[in-house]
């Protein structure tokens, strides 16, 4: 047998083997990801790509890190009939537009077949539905709560405020002691404004009124919102958010909580990674609880947000394999592997965390917080974040409008009238994301 004949025979045998029944062709699932640090990329390559490959031979997950404008790149690719298999959007509002344009695959069959409808918190599944059809699932969820320095609070004999009145008393005390009451600042990240708006609106007006407004049955100009925004403005004027709000980044302000420069942080669960960065090296102890609420507003209260949602490209050549990747993300194996390494980022909305074995140490504070938030969600004690439940133009208006309100360019009434006008337009055109 000549060398050529041997080679041809080898190729023929390989071809026959591939065509044999039961042998599936190796499939690749693509996923475009935002910019990450080299350490974070390594973590995902190990825990997600490596973990998935180990449990799913025959399917390869390809994560492609495409920088901060990945959402725009993805949108253009989808428009031209391309794009990755897994569509990672910024949340329900973006997924809503993509689904309406027919660019996403309906996931109801996968949810039933793979058990997502039983494994995930039902409220989060409902956020991904458009006209009753499931198109996206939150990759992670976040909750706004109140972080504080447990050591400083204990030393000064302070307790975490549960009511707005208690919070104001404590904030005034902090101001008198030369502290900035709230960890706050928008330098480098102007959308930080909407985080403070979200907390203030939820704690002062309450989730029931917000829900009605988002459903279009109560105008944003309602007295309950005017009163809330009047108080929100008064807090800024008193200096609760600091005299250098526009020159300070929220992360720097959070670091200031370690030394007592800043007092307490109305922040999202993403700040658990800042606890790790700033409290742990200093040997300080952080604490986390619900945001304080006004009279008549349920306590505890955690405004809930979805920063990222997963879908499958309608044009995907491998939708079943893409569904397997999503299924792996919602598995206890992946949760147990990633959460100890990257707390706050991979807060996957799993309904039951009790049977999961953590492959590493998770701080008691994080465990306590996630349990507290899950219980509150189960009891319906959750609020609404602007970046998840408000349509895009209204959200952008709020980001700049908060500054106009604080800097005396608009009264609470004018600010809310502007919001009502934009929101009404978006409600009419069907751009308001679904409510749970």
């Amino acid at each position, binding site marked *: 047998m000549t060398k050529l004949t041997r080679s041809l025979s080898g190729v023929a045998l390989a071809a026959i083997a591939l065509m044999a029944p039961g042998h599936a062709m190796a499939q690749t699932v693509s996923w475009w990801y935002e910019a990450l640090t080299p350490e974070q990329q390594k973590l995902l390559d190990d825990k997600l790509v490596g973990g998935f490959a180990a449990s799913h031979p025959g399917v390869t997950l390809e994560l492609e890190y495409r920088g901060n404008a990945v959402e725009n790149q993805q949108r253009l690719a989808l428009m031209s009939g391309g794009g990755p298999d897994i569509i990672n959007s910024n949340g329900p509002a973006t997924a809503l537009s993509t689904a309406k344009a027919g660019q996403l695959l309906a996931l109801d069959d996968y949810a039933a077949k793979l058990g997502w409808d039983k494994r995930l918190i039902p409220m989060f599944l409902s956020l991904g539905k458009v006209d009753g059809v499931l198109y996206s699932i939150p990759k992670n969820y976040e909750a706004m709560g109140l972080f504080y320095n447990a050591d400083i609070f204990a030393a000064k004999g302070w307790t975490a405020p549960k009511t707005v009145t208690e919070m104001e008393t404590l904030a005034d005390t902090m101001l008198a002691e030369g502290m900035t009451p709230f960890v706050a600042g928008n*330098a480098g990240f102007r959308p930080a404004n909407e985080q403070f708006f979200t907390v203030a609106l939820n704690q002062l007006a309450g989730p029931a009124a917000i829900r009605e407004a988002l459903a279009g049955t109560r105008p944003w100009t309602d007295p309950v919102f005017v009163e809330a925004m009047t108080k929100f403005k008064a807090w800024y004027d008193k200096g609760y958010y600091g005299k250098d709000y526009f*020159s300070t980044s929220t992360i720097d302000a959070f670091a200031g909580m370690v030394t007592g420069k800043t007092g307490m942080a109305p922040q999202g669960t993403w700040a658990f990674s800042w606890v790790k960065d700033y409290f742990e090296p200093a040997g300080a102890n952080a604490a986390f609880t619900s945001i304080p609420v006004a009279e008549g507003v349920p306590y505890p209260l955690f405004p809930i947000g979805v920063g990222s949602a997963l879908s499958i490209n309608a044009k995907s050549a491998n939708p079943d394999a893409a569904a397997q990747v999503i299924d792996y993300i919602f598995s206890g194996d992946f949760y147990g592997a990633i959460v100890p390494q990257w707390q706050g980022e991979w807060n996957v909305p799993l309904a039951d965390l009790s049977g999961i074995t953590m492959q590493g140490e998770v701080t008691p504070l994080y465990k306590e917080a996630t349990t507290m938030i899950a219980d509150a969600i189960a009891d319906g004690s959750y609020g609404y974040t602007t970046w998840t439940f408000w349509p895009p133009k209204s959200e*952008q208006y709020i980001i700049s409008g908060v500054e106009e309100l604080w*800097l005396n*360019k608009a009264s609470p009434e004018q600010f809310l009238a502007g919001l009502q006008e934009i929101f009404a337009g978006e409600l009419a055109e069907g751009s308001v994301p679904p409510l749970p």
Partner: protein
Amino acid sequence: MWLFALPALSINVVIILIPALLTIALAFCQWDGFSMPVFVGLANFNAVFADRVFWIALGNNIKWTLIFLTVPIAIGLFAATLLLIIKRGRTLFQIVYFMPVVVATAITARVWQGMIYNPNTGVFGLLQRFGIELADPLAHTETALYGIAAVDLWHWWGFLAVIFLAALRQVPQEMVEAARLDGAGFFGLMRHILIPAIAPTIKLMMVMTVIWSFLVFDFVYILTQGGPAYSSEVLSTLAYRNAFFEFDLGRAAAVALVIALFGLTATFAYVRLQAREGAN
């Protein structure tokens, strides 16, 4: 002959002409970037002109243009003339003046934001500790635009100085010497000999300044993202927000056309000026 033009022509058609035509078409459509565009006539322009933020942004672009038509051109001309006169160290000064131009915009912006303006970590904060009250200009509605312009000026005037120096060096030495023998001082030399001699270069730079001023985006976006309270909003940041955060690409295209209109007007004025001078 057409074969020679084909490579450049095809690149220009694909990269400039087609996107430009699409932008013009989009300005008359409602498009969210996801679904098919729908023709809406002049609705986007009506919405843009009814938006108070558009007028704030346009006003800021005009202020920006006026600042950049005067301050850096004056500094650049002055520095270039000084460089022309000095005999030693000219190359060194040129490098030093030009250096900010080659530093990446993001780095320049972050250095000014964090190491100069910042009241906690910057030079302004240090001065405050010595009792010199200097507020972060980026944090106040009255000063934010000027704070950004100062950063851009720092980065820009050296470029103009080098360009003007190159032009000044083309001025015949005999003219300069003759003026000096006639008793012209520094400012007399500038006014009567040097500036008239390099007027075409200055005019070109002024036209380009108008075009660039209406395209300004990077420093504004990095330093304030148009805030606080729209005080530093310019047309390009408005268009960017319309397109990529509000998903209203039709409106963004309408704003982009307004930007292009100012650029085209400046270009047209320059071409007319050149034609008139050529005729004379």
